[in-house]
C-alpha cells in the first residue's frame, strides 16, 4: 500500500479541486463505469416501468389466469416460469401476474424506499455528527449515548416489531393504513437505524477536523459557528459522507428487501423485490425462476452499488488500500 499523495508529481497545471480530481480518477476506473452503467439500467427500468405496461398491454397487478395450469394454480404453463414473448420474465404462480412488470415496478419501490431512507439517514446522521463532534461536551455525551443505544438494538428484529406499532399509532390518528402509510413508516424505521452509523463517522471526522489549524484560523478572523460548521468543516466531510452514502445505499436496499421479505414491508399488490422473494418462497421448488429473478436482480444492484462505493472511496481517498 502506498502512502504517497499521488498528485504532487509535476508542477500544478490547472486549479483542480480535490472533488474534480476524484471525479477524474473515477472516470478512468473501469469497474466504476460498469457499475454505474448497471445502476443506470436499473434506474432507467424503474423510471420507464409505465412504458412497458403500455408495450406489454398489461399492468403489474393484472391477473392472467390463462397462463396458469388450471389443475395446479401454482404452476405457470410453459418452461422457466412461463417465460414467453408476452411475459418476458414469466408469470407469478397462483395469479399469472407478469413478473417482468412486477420486477420493473419493484425496482421503483425498492429503489425509492432505499434512496429516501439513505437520504433521510444521511441528513440526520450528518447533522447529529456535526453537532455532536463540533460542540462536544454534554451535547456530545447525550448524542453519542443515543447512538450507542440505537446501535444496541437488534435492528432487523426491532424494525420488524416496531413497524406494526407505528402503523397502529397512525391508525389511531385515523390515517388509513396500507402502502401509503407503510412506505413512509419503512423509510422512517430504516433511517432510524441507519443514521447512527453515518453520525459516528461524521462525528469522528469533525472531531479531528475541529482541531485543525484552519478552523482556528477561521475563528481568529471572527467566523461564526455557522460559518465554521458549514463553510470550514462540512466541505471537508464530503468525501467521507459520499463514501458512506455510496456504501449505505446497498445496505438500505438489502434491509428494505429483508423487512418486506419478513412481512413488515410493502403490501401486495404494490410490487417490491423483497415482496416478490417472499411470495416466491412456497414455489421455489416448483417454479425456481420466480425466486431467481428478483433475487438475482437484487444481487446485481447491490453488487453494482458496492463496487461503485468502493471506487468512490478509492477515488476520494487515494491512500486507502486497493
Amino acid at each position, binding site marked *: 500500500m502506498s502512502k504517497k499523495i499521488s498528485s504532487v508529481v509535476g508542477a500544478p497545471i490547472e486549479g483542480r479541486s480535490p472533488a474534480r480530481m476524484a471525479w477524474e480518477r473515477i472516470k478512468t476506473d473501469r469497474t466504476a463505469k460498469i457499475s454505474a452503467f448497471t445502476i443506470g439500467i436499473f434506474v432507467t427500468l424503474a423510471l420507464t416501468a409505465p412504458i412497458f405496461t403500455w408495450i406489454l398491454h398489461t399492468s403489474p*397487478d*393484472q*391477473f392472467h*389466469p390463462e397462463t*396458469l*395450469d*388450471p*389443475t*395446479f*394454480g*401454482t*404452476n405457470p404453463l410453459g418452461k422457466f416460469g412461463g417465460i414467453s414473448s408476452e411475459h418476458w420474465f414469466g408469470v407469478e404462480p*397462483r*395469479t*399469472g401476474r407478469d413478473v417482468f412488470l412486477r420486477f420493473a415496478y419493484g425496482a421503483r419501490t425498492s429503489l425509492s424506499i432505499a434512496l429516501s431512507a439513505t437520504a433521510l439517514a444521511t441528513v440526520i446522521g450528518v447533522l447529529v455528527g456535526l453537532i455532536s463532534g463540533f460542540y462536544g461536551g454534554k451535547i456530545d455525551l447525550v448524542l453519542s449515548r443515543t447512538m450507542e443505544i440505537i446501535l444496541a438494538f437488534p435492528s432487523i428484529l426491532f424494525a420488524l416489531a416496531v413497524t406494526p406499532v407505528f402503523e397502529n399509532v397512525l391508525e389511531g390518528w385515523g390515517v388509513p393504513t*396500507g402502502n401509503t402509510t407503510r412506505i413512509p413508516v419503512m423509510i422512517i424505521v430504516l433511517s432510524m437505524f441507519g443514521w447512527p452509523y453515518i453520525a459516528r463517522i461524521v462525528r469522528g471526522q469533525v472531531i479531528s477536523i475541529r482541531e485543525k489549524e484552519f478552523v482556528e484560523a477561521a475563528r481568529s478572523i471572527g467566523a461564526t459557528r455557522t460559518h465554521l460548521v458549514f463553510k470550514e468543516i462540512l466541505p471537508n466531510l464530503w468525501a467521507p459522507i459520499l463514501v458512506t452514502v455510496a456504501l449505505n445505499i446497498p445496505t438500505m436496499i438489502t434491509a428494505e428487501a429483508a423487512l418486506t421479505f419478513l412481512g413488515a414491508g410493502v403490501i*401486495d*399488490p404494490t410490487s417490491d423485490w423483497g415482496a416478490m422473494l417472499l411470495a416466491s*418462497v*412456497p*414455489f421455489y*421448488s*416448483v417454479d425456481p425462476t420466480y425466486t431467481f429473478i428478483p433475487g438475482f436482480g437484487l444481487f446485481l444492484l447491490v453488487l453494482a452499488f458496492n463496487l461503485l462505493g468502493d471506487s468512490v472511496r478509492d477515488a476520494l481517498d487515494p491512500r486507502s488500500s486497493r
Partner: protein
Amino acid sequence: MSLMKKALALVGVAALASTTLLSVNAASAATTFATPVAPIKGAVKGGTVTILAQGDFEHLDPARNYVGGTLDFYRLFTRTLTQYRTVNGKTDLVPDVAADLGTTKDGGKTWTFKLRTNLKYEDGKKITCADMKYGVMRSYNDDILDGGPTYAKDFIDNPTSYKGPYTEPGKDLPTVICNSKGDAITFKLAIPVPYFPYVTTFGAFSPIPKAKDTKQNYELRPLSSGPYKIESYSRGKELSLVRNDQWDPKTDPVRWNYPDEYHVIMGADQNVIEQSLISDSGNAKTSVSFDTNIITNLSKVLNVAKYKDRLFNFDSAYNRYYAINVDTVKDINVRKAIQCAVDFKSILLAAGGTSAGSYANSTIPKSIKAAYRNFNVCGRDVSKKPEAQLDQAKAFLAKATNPKTTLRLAYRDRGVEPLRAAALEQSLKAAGFTVIMDKYPSSDFYAPAAKRGVPNEPDIIQTSWAFDWAAASGIVYALFDARTMSPEDAKSNQSRGDFADLQKLFAKADTSATAAQEKILGDIEQSLIVDKAAHVSVYFETSHYMAGSKVGGLQVDGGYSTLSVLGAYVKK
C-alpha cells in the same frame, strides 16, 4: 358456529345424510354398533407413529376442541357420549360412552342415552353418569373454557339461567338428569333437535370427574378415558401419548390401539412438512400430518404412481364463499352485478387450481341430496364457465336504481386469502366497481366483520363454512337465519339477510320432519343465492394429506373429514 372448524368430510357423508339421519330416528335399532370395532387387516402392534403439525393443538380440553384434525386425534384419549366410527371408508354414528344412540319419545325434545357402566379412566376410577353431567355443565363456563362449540348450552333447556360450575359453584343444571342407577342420562332440550345424537359427539359430552377439573389448565393434561394417555406435553413443541392400561378394547366400538406411542411434533412449516413427507426419509417414514394439506408441491405428487398409496385426496366440507352484505348493498341489481363479476377461475387458481378445490354453485354440497339444488349463478353453470361474466355484471349495474359502485371487501390475512381477495378485486374493477381492500388480522376477523351499522362496514365478506353435521340444518340455519342476528352483530349470518318470505320458510322448517326440513332449507339457500343475490359460493376445498410409507391403517374419517389416525399402525 363452526367458522374455525377445519373440515367435515363428504366421504361417508352421503351415508350419514341419507341413511343415518333416519337411523337416528329409529335409534334403538342401532345398538349393534356398540360392539367393539373389528381389527384392521394386516395391522400389527408396536412402534411410534409421528404426527407432524404446523402448530400446537388449539385446545385439548374436550369442551374447547373444535378443529378437524384435533377432533380426530383427541379421541385417542377422550371418549364422548356418541362418536363416529370409520371402517373401510364407511362412517357411522355409534354409541361410545353411551350404550345406545339415544331415544326420544317427544320428537327430539327429550333425549335419553343408556350408559356403559364398565368404563374406567387412566387412574383406574370408574366413569360415572355424574362425570358425564359435569362435563356438560362445565361447558357452560365458556368464558373461561373458550373456543369450543356451544351446542350443549344452545340446545339444552336452561330454566335457571345456569352459568357454569366456576361461576356458580354448587348450583345444579336440572335439565340434565342421571337416573338413580347411574346407567342412563337424560337431556331436556329447549327445542326439538332430531339430530341431537350427532351433537353429542362433541367434547362437551365427555366425562370429566369434578375433582380432576383444573379449569383452563385442564387441556394441558386431560384425564384419559381412551386407549392412550398423555405422557408429556410441551406446548408448541411436542406431545407424547403412551398406552393407557386401564382402557378395555372390548368396551370400545370406535378405537384401535396399534402403536406403542404417538408422538406429535409441532411448529414445522407447511413447506417443511410437505417436503419431509414427500422425501420419506428417516423419521418421516412413520410420520403423518393431519393439519397440513400438500399444497405447493401438489403438482409433483398428485397422480404420480410412486406416491399413490400414501397420498389421500378427498373433498372436504370446507366451502369458500362471499357474503354480500344486504344492509349496505341494498340494490339487488348491484348484488347481481357482484355475483356476475366473481371470477371463479382466478379465485380457484389463486387457491391452487382445480386440484385444490372444485367449483360449487351452492354452499350445500351435492352429497346432501335432500337439500342440494343444481341452480345457475349469473345464468351459467359455474363448473363449466367459471370466468367472470363482465358484460352481464355491467348490465346489472346499469339497471340499478340505487347504484353503489364503491365496495369494501373484507378478508382475512392468512394463507392464500389475500390473493383470492385480489382476484375478486380485479374482476370487480373490470365490471366497473371501485374496491376498497379491507384486510383483517388473521386472529381477529369473524367478529369485527360481523359488526352491523358500524363505519366501514364491509360490503363483501370473503369467508367460509364447514358444517358440523352433514345436513342442510348444519349450514342454512347458521348462515342464513335472521333470527341468529342482533342489530349490532350478524354472527355467522354475514350477508345480514332478513327476508320475510324466507323467515316464513324457516318457521315452517322448524316444525318439519327431517326430510321435509332439509328440502325447505335447500329452497331457502337457492332463494338466497338466486333471487336475493346475497351469497356467492365459489368452491369446495379438496384435501390432500400425505403419510410416510411405513404408516398403515389410515383412513378418511367421514365424521371430521380428516385423515384419521385412530387405526394407524407402523408397518413391519
